[in-house]
């Protein structure tokens, strides 16, 4: 089966206040890092892997140097057989930089056909509260610029429960985002992670001006209603697509398919093994081929992951792939009676309400299947 390739670029102009992803604003090492990516990519050269999705994530991969980007793409195509219709996504931050259109043009010419823009909000004060460096206007300009260059598959990331966000500002953000006619939207609830600026503040008792739980629920209702009215399919817990433009790369994760991760701390799932590259830049530079945390995924673990991941999709899990127990059916029926799931002859999937308590449901389902 065709695989996905994920390439991680950990450099950013500045670290956002909520982010606990591996990233750094130290850019001196960019060129060295790009070289290491090439080495890592080329190590797959003889393996004969065909990939139909590629995802450049970060960090901010749009910050790659021109020379580096060219070498990385060249190595990518040398190492893997990239299909003609491959989905090649680049994560980028909306930007007012003068050379930004040029950069987008570069990636477009290298084969990128999908953009994922970290827009987060269309409110100035909310973006500032998040420590983002762009403005709502930058988002609009960036999308326009990308459209002009021929990008016909654009995804916007938006956040729910941003400091100071209200139902009204959320509504405004949604309508401004929809006005840009994105093909895809990813909606995340801000989660406060321990080792972030927000985490530290929160621990000290700062409420960060976050909406309360009831409001958060109303916000989420608003998101689902609004997007559904605008023809978006809620195909994954936090992802919405128009005209079938689901993220093909991310679907591979959610369908427990295989993928190759290249770059610092990037995870791979290949030949039933999950592993990751060294998780500090220095360690990665030292040996880009090192595999850490190698974990063999047994049949039952694989099945558990399939259940855990595919229940995130509106398509749900296929009953053929699992071995349903009587306990599973009892639970599934109870979930259905309570409006948390849909059970058909061949699938079980969660409803909107079910997704909101999906951690608990997944645990119960795995228990009922004796997989946890």
């Amino acid at each position, binding site marked *: 089966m065709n695989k996905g390739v994920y390439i991680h670029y950990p450099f950013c102009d500045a670290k956002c206040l909520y982010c606990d992803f591996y990233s750094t604003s130290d850019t001196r090492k960019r060129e060295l890092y790009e070289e290491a990516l090439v080495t890592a990519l080329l190590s797959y050269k003889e393996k004969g892997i065909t990939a139909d999705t590629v995802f450049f994530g970060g960090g901010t991969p749009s910050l790659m140097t021109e020379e580096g980007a060219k070498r990385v793409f060249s190595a990518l195509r040398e190492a893997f057989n990239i299909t003609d219709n491959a989905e090649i996504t680049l994560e980028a931050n909306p930007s007012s930089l003068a050379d930004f259109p040029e950069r987008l043009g570069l990636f477009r010419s290298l084969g990128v056909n999908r953009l994922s823009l970290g827009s987060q909000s269309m409110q100035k004060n909310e973006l500032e509260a998040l420590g983002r460096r762009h403005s709502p206007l930058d988002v609009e300009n960036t999308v326009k610029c990308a459209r002009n260059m021929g990008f016909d598959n654009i995804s916007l990331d938006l956040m729910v429960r941003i400091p100071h966000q209200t139902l009204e500002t959320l509504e405004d953000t949604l309508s401004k985002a929809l006005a840009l006619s994105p093909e895809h939207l990813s909606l995340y609830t801000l989660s406060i992670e321990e080792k972030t600026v927000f985490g530290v503040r929160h621990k000290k008792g700062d409420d960060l001006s976050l909406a309360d739980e009831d409001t958060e629920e109303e916000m989420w209702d608003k998101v689902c209603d609004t997007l559904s009215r605008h023809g978006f399919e809620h195909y994954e817990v936090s992802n919405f697509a128009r005209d079938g433009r689901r993220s093909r790369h991310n679907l591979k994760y959610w369908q427990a398919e295989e993928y190759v991760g290249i770059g610092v701390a990037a995870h791979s799932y290949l030949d039933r093994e999950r592993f990751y590259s060294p998780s500090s830049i220095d360690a990665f530079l030292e040996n880009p081929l090192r595999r850490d945390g190698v974990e063999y995924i047994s049949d039952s673990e694989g099945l558990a992951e399939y259940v855990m991941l595919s229940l995130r999709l509106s398509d749900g899990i296929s009953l053929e792939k699992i071995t349903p127990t009587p306990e599973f059916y009892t639970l599934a029926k109870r979930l259905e009676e309570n409006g948390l799931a849909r059970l058909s002859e061949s699938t079980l999937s969660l409803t909107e309400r079910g997704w909101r308590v999906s951690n608990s449901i*997944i645990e119960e389902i795995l228990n009922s299947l004796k997989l946890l």
Partner: protein
Amino acid sequence: MYNPENIRNFCIIAHIDHGKSTLADRLLEITDTVKSREMEEQILDNMDLERERGITIKARAVKLDYTADDGQSYTFNLIDTPGHVDFNYEVSRSLSACEGALLVVDASQGVEAQTLANTYLALDHDLEILPVINKIDLPAANPDRVKNEIEEIIGIPAEDAPCISAKTGLNIKDVLDAVVKYIPAPKTNAEKPLKALIFDAVYDAYRGVIVYVRIMEGKLSAKDKIRMMNTGAEFEVVEVGHLRPFGPEKRDTVYAGEVAYITAAIKSLDDTQVGDTVTLADNPTEEAFPGFKKVLPMVYSGIYPADGARYTDLRDALEKLRLNDSALTFEAESSAALGFGFRCGFLGLLHMEVIQDRLEREFNLDLITTAPGVIYKTVMKSGEVKYIDNPQNFPAADEAEEICEPMVKATILSPKEYVGTIMDLCQDRRGVFIDTKYITTDRVELHYRLPLNEIVYDFFDALKSRTKGYASLDYEMSDYEKSSLVKLDIMLNGDIVDALSFIVHSEKAYARARKIVEKLKENIPRQLFEIPVQAAIGGKIIARETVKAMRKDVLAKCYGGDITRKKKLLEKQKEGKKKMRQLGTVEVPHEAFMAVLKLDE
């Protein structure tokens, strides 16, 4: 050198916190038996728990040397007594081993209910009572008022009572001189056949049971063959000696008038019950000491391991505790809700708490306990009489002709300003007022007849909280009385949770039911589905609350690198559930079981 004229056997009687253990420390120190810097605080209380709670659970005895001002050497045997009502029988046996008692009274608190109960017990045993006024260093100390109280309430002279501070060591020598002067030497006859009273016994993993005795007549040496007159068990003595603060001091022979320990490769405490008489197998004394009784549990509760896999650990722990506590009883029981556990019998509430604490502390067990209950006497329609210690066996309304519950006579001592609130409490707990006595102008002694069922529930806590801790309670068993009792069942999601069932008076069932369902609602976290929490009597629902369904858990993104993290989260989530009990489809945290045990606001 054996010189019975110079032996003084005595104990210390005091209310909790009035300074018994501290005084014991000072006595040890001043007699130079222990150097103070070597001494861990309060060495007579040698269980951690005792030290922390400031109470003495098991009696111990220690031999001290004292040289009086006249140059004579005296042997003091200080016998420590448990200070709590639950251990009344043990107290009475310890008292039998003494000729005198120091009555320690806090110079600011005055005489308390327990002090009174134990003093009466001591007077019953014809002991010479020596009042000692302690804590005179406190600003609130009023030694004259307290002396008056002692004379008025107890009726013994207190004019010359030593006024001391055990804490600072002030006037401790006065106490020692009073012991020499006022406490009589034992009446002894070492030529008669051996007659010794067991007042305590502890289990030692290496030496078997160590028996503590007061020898009344005769003498005892290693290799002698002894017999326990009530149990009939016989043993060959391995070792005899005296217990010193630093450990045992072996002797060839111990004599009448002395306090001694005996080891004889005894495997079970059942053979060496407190109150029994030790004599020589081949030359027995004529009559055993009167008053021997086997102590019986009064309060019962189910004890379950929070983690079902630790059932065997719990059983082993209970067996170990029983080695040292023959009053503890337990038998296996099972509950649909809690799995396998034990129905345990205790002398009283304190005893129960002590056992539960020790299980958790010394054996590192997490426990779930069920509401404490008492033994009900039921006369069935068939005429058969049954004693029921477990709500599971409580008869249905149409099966029993008559149900009786145990009653106690309670004595409550309190400053007068709390009399009203105490009367309200007692009335609320179905108490019948007997009488009230003003023992001084501002202290009152109240007598009530109360169902034990109400006392075991949360009476102590309620009394303490309503009187800011000033009131004290003592009770003694009275008799059984016919009563209108019902079994209250608690249902979660429609299923009865057997471990939460309990017996309650019919008039109080409704209020109790309401409180319990409220408490459960507060303590059961929201789950995927709505959970009805109901209380029922004989299938009829009398109270209901609902735990609403959970609306969200964490909605988080999940990409390639998050999968491992996500899996760990699920595992952690599952691990967290181990602190919960799965009852049918409902997860109940352990705290929920504990929360229903304390309902008094």
